[in-house]
């Protein structure tokens, strides 16, 4: 919403400076986004051309001697065809920034002749498109004074970023009312007098869609002369960014801004028969005033005559019946439209107009008739003619809202004490009418404030006018205790997993929650309920079923930038369905190239190898350990999902049913489909699937029992079938004596012809912890025998000879 300072002062008697006005507007909720104080026009002064001689070396240039008011003529080279002795125009001295050509002037030589400034055209000052010659002012314009001030072009323009709840502030009058209420002056009384008509309006109006049009006023003015509007109207319209068209159209725009009352004018000669307000027919077309043709639907409201659509109701008039300089009879329309319908129609057609801006917020119904009176008065004044009576159709009148307002509500919600009289006075100045002295008091809401529904709305009115900055901050009551744990288990796990993975040299990515459909399908997603109806791009269409496609793509993007050794992780949501319980919390990571835990690339102490399944496995277990999973009870099995390499991947389980994650290298077909290359391995663990630990009664750790006897280790090597898993063998060794065997680790895997076809050797180190006594050689023999026995029983392995 734009306005100029002088226009505001039409409605507001005030001594306040521009700065004060701007500051107050923002503080009462009419946020000033920009102020153009027209400082750019200040350097231009009125100057008189004393002599104009032909340039010695250029036919089209003239050398002027210019009087800028100080009696010392200045030499200026000028190419304008109208440059002549005696012309009075606008002069820019060297050092002046000329906005229309985006140049700061300096003294220059033009074809060998020095030029000390410039006589400007209107386009060069950006006050119009006129560029056929330099500005040519009346001979009595005062030489040496500011051109902008003389031409009334220095009127500051204020641009307000209006919130959608304030239709009353789409009018300059309404803004003046707010400022007056805030104590910045007095609102001028500009009541609109009715203009009597000579005869009934002969164009009749029928409303066939009353649900979209709660009122319609129309009036005919015959015998008008429609030329350009007066300069003062044109200047105001230009200042707020509108282009003057002709007097009739300019009047509608003027009233739109002045009073927030959009109007439309039809050339009555071009309207055939009576007018009807109805829904458009499916596919009905109209050529609008912007020169574009729009196809309409029955969801949209139009004003039609017997030829068809003449106007898109409340949004834009039709080209056919628009007013031009030949218009002699004009139909003025002032109507009410259903805000939601206007908003939807405007959006669907993609039309943004000043009328739509107001109608979709809600135009004051009680100003429908005064609006047409005001417009008629202006038409008669500016264009002459004879007015008919006003025809009003379908308007049932306005039943004002009444809000019960307990005054204590101001203090309760804002914390500040505003005296009751002052609160009610503020409301009265804004046009509210408190009825009586009771408390709560019934407050009648003015017709221009459709946004006011309840007492909280009235508190806001009092607060914003009384002054938000007068509310002193008050500490929120203490919770009177040391704050306890404030994170949920899942939040704690999320943080822990992130830090644990970052500590392993990985970098945290935040990838899109939506991924290409193809990627989603590859990772078990792509369900219809997880597809966006309106994705922002075709490749951001499906909610991700896994964090891996995003991470794999991110790793590849880095590789494509020349950084192939990357380790990335993400701890975030994945989606199995559209219900709140179907959003999972997952930690995932990928390593590419040689991005191993210890570092990547070549090194004098040993080059990093390519990443593989065991890097991913280590990351997965580290993440699970960080989130509190019972790592000693995890089971590792084969059978990871299809996007992994079937022989180089695993599933992490807790018991037979709970799957905590997967890890591995990837299936070549998956990588190919994702356009990802290079050695790459990754994992995904479901941190929301880890069972909640039992609540403990005490933080005391269990007692530490240290054995008095030294632990010893014994090595065994078993020959087993190639298919035997190391995990099975170590489990067998551990189970041989649960008391004495404290640990088993695998220290060598060997395959060779010497072992026989399909065989391999697994070497383990068994840690034995004597408990009650130092073990004798015989004891060791017995234990070793049991280990060999159990391994044989469980895996078929025999001690390697």
């Amino acid at each position, binding site marked *: 919403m734009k306005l100029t300072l002088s226009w505001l002062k039409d409605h507001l008697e005030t001594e306040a400076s521009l700065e004060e006005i701007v500051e107050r507007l*923002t*503080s009462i*909720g009419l*946020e000033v986004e920009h102020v153009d104080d027209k400082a750019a026009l200040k350097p231009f002064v009125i100057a008189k051309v004393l002599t104009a001689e032909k340039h010695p070396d250029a036919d089209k240039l003239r050398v002027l001697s210019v009087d800028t008011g100080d009696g010392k003529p200045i030499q200026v080279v000028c190419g304008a065809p109208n440059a002549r002795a005696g012309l009075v125009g606008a002069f820019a001295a060297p050092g002046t920034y000329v906005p229309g050509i985006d140049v700061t002037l300096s003294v220059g030589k033009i074809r060998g002749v020095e030029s000390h400034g410039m006589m400007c055209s209107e386009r060069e000052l950006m006050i119009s498109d006129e560029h056929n010659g330099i500005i040519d002012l009346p001979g009595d314009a005062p030489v040496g004074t500011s051109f902008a001030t003389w031409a009334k072009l220095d009127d500051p323009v204020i641009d307000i970023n209006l919130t959608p709840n304030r239709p009353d502030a789409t009018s300059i009058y309404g803004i003046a009312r707010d400022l007056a209420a805030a104590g910045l002056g007095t609102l001028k009384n500009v009541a609109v007098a009715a203009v009597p008509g000579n005869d009934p309006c002969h164009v009749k109006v029928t409303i066939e869609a009353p649900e979209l049009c709660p009122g319609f006023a129309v009036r005919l003015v015959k015998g008008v002369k429609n030329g350009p509007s007066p300069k003062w109207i044109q200047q105001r319209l230009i200042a707020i960014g509108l282009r003057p068209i002709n007097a009739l159209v300019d009047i509608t725009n003027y009233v739109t801004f002045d009073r927030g009352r959009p109007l439309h004018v039809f050339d009555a000669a071009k309207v055939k028969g009576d007018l009807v307000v109805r829904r458009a027919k499916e596919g009905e077309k109209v050529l609008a005033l912007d020169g574009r043709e729009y196809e309409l639907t029955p969801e949209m409201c139009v004003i039609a005559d017997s030829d068809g659509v003449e106007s898109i109701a409340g949004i834009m008039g039709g080209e056919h019946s628009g007013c031009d300089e030949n218009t002699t009879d004009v139909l003025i329309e002032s109507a009410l439209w259903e805000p*939601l319908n206007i*908003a*939807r129609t405007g*959006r669907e057609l993609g039309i943004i107009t000043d009328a739509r801006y107001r109608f979709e917020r809600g135009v004051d119904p009680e100003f429908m008739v005064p609006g047409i009176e005001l417009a008629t008065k202006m038409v008669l004044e500016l264009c002459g003619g004879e007015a008919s009576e006003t025809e009003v159709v379908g308007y049932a009148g306005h039943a004002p809202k009444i809000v019960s307002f307990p005054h204590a509500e101001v203090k*309760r919600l*804002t914390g500040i004490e505003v005296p009751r009289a002052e609160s009610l006075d503020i409301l009265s100045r804004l046009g509210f009418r408190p009825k009586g002295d009771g408390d709560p008091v019934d407050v009648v809401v003015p017709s221009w404030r459709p946004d006011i529904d*309840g007492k*909280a*709305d009235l*508190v*806001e009115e009092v*607060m*914003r006018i009384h002054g*938000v*900055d007068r*509310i002193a*901050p*008050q500490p*929120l009551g*203490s919770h009177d205790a040391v704050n306890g744990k*404030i*994170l949920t288990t*899942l*939040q704690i796990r999320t*943080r822990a997993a*992130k*830090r644990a993975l*970052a*500590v*392993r*040299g990985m*970098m945290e*990515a*935040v*990838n*899109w929650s939506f991924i290409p459909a193809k990627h989603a399908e590859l990772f078990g997603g792509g369900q*219809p*309920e997880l*597809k*966006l*109806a309106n*994705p*922002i791009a075709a490749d951001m269409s499906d909610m991700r079923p896994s964090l891996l496609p995003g991470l794999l793509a*991110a790793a590849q*993007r*880095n590789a494509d930038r020349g950084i192939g050794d*990357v380790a990335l992780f993400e701890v975030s949501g994945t989606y199995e369905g*559209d*219900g*709140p319980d179907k*959003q999972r919390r997952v930690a995932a990571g990928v390593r590419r190239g040689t991005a191993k*835990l210890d*570092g990547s690339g070549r*090194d*004098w*102490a040993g080059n990093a190898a390519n990443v593989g399944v065991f890097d991913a496995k280590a990351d997965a277990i580290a993440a699970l350990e960080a989130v509190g999973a019972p790592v000693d009870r995890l089971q590792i099995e084969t059978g990871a999902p299809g996007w992994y390499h079937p022989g180089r991947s695993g599933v992490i389980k807790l018991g037979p049913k709970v799957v905590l994650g997967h890890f591995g290298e990837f299936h070549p077909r998956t990588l190919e489909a994702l356009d990802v290359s290079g050695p790459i391995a990754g994992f995904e663990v479901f941190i929301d699937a880890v069972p909640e630990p039992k609540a403990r009664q005490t933080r005391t750790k269990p007692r530490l029992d240290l054995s008095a006897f030294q632990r010893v280790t014994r090595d065994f090597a078993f020959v087993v079938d190639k298919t035997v898993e190391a995990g099975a063998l170590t489990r067998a060794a551990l189970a041989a004596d649960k008391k004495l065997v404290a640990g088993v680790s695998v220290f060598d895997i060997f395959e060779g012809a010497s072992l026989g076809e399909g065989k391999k050797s697994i070497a383990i180190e068994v840690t034995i912890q004597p408990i009650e006594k130092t073990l004798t050689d015989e004891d060791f023999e017995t234990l070793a025998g049991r280990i060999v026995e159990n391994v044989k029983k469980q895996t078929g392995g025999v001690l390697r000879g």
Partner: protein
Amino acid sequence: METLENSLMADIAAASDEQAIEAVRVSALGKKGTVSELLKTLGAMSPDERQVKGPAINGLKNRIAEALGARKAELRDAAITTRLAAERVDVTLPVRQSPSERGRIHPISQVIDEIAAIFGDLGFAIAEGPDIETDYYNFTALNFPEGHPAREMHDTFFFQPDEKGERKVLRTHTSPVQIRTMETQKPPIRIVIPGKTYRQDSDATHSPMFHQVEGLVIDKSANVANMKWVLEEFCKAFFEVPQVKMRFRPSFFPFTEPSLEVDIQCDRSRPGEVRFGEGSDWMEILGCGMVHPNVLRHGGLDPDEYQGFAWGMGIDRIAMLKYGMPDLRAFFDADVRWLQHYGFRPLDMPTLFGGLSS
């Protein structure tokens, strides 16, 4: 005897390593060593002779033993010196960087931790909710009227309608969690809600996915004055400045009444850098207000009994303001050069006692 001593001393001096000195020791002081043999002769001597020879032989033994020890120590020192020289390496050779120094936490995660640290101190808990929401939680319960522009396809991501014709949405703000919290928890409520949010928007400062933090206080007295205090304390703590100047402007949101927008005073005169607590620019930083009576009602609370305030701000935005990232899009690109530069070291945990950032 003097000849023997000279000869032994010469042998000791000539011994060039620990083995050689051991050989000399054995030859002199071993069971059958020359000096040991001399000592054995004492037994057969007369007392008078022993009186004379005894001290002489024992003296010889002691001198030889002492010389042996001294030479042995000398040789060990020499051996160590030689070994050390041989073991010398080029210590300027680089070592690999520790993984905990290489890893990075994304600025969004770090800032969420910072927010949690501050609000934890003020007695708030952290709440969360799902990204995929119903129309009810995202709009209706938050007092968005039918036909509000946010309910249109050009602002909000929708899913395909289900069999009942209802379309789920990607939440456009974290505010649905306000309702979800009120439904499950009786006041007093003090929560902050960080999370992902989504809107149909994409340019240097808008991203179709972004992060918001929402705050909600509900009890029987929380008011605008308390809200101003909480937000000013937060901004001071978050931006780590002793003072901030904030401007609360009346504004409009469907879910609050009264509603306010908040600007923070700052200095933007240095390119690429924003300083808070000084300067003369105002920058919009958050929206807030008293929870709308209709929202309280939708949460099952009587607006005449309970009241409170809520606010929301962009996590990505305050991260950009505090740490100076110029472009929001880079947050979601996983460029390791960006992560390395703007990310945080894994062990840099934001705390109030140690400072949020170092």
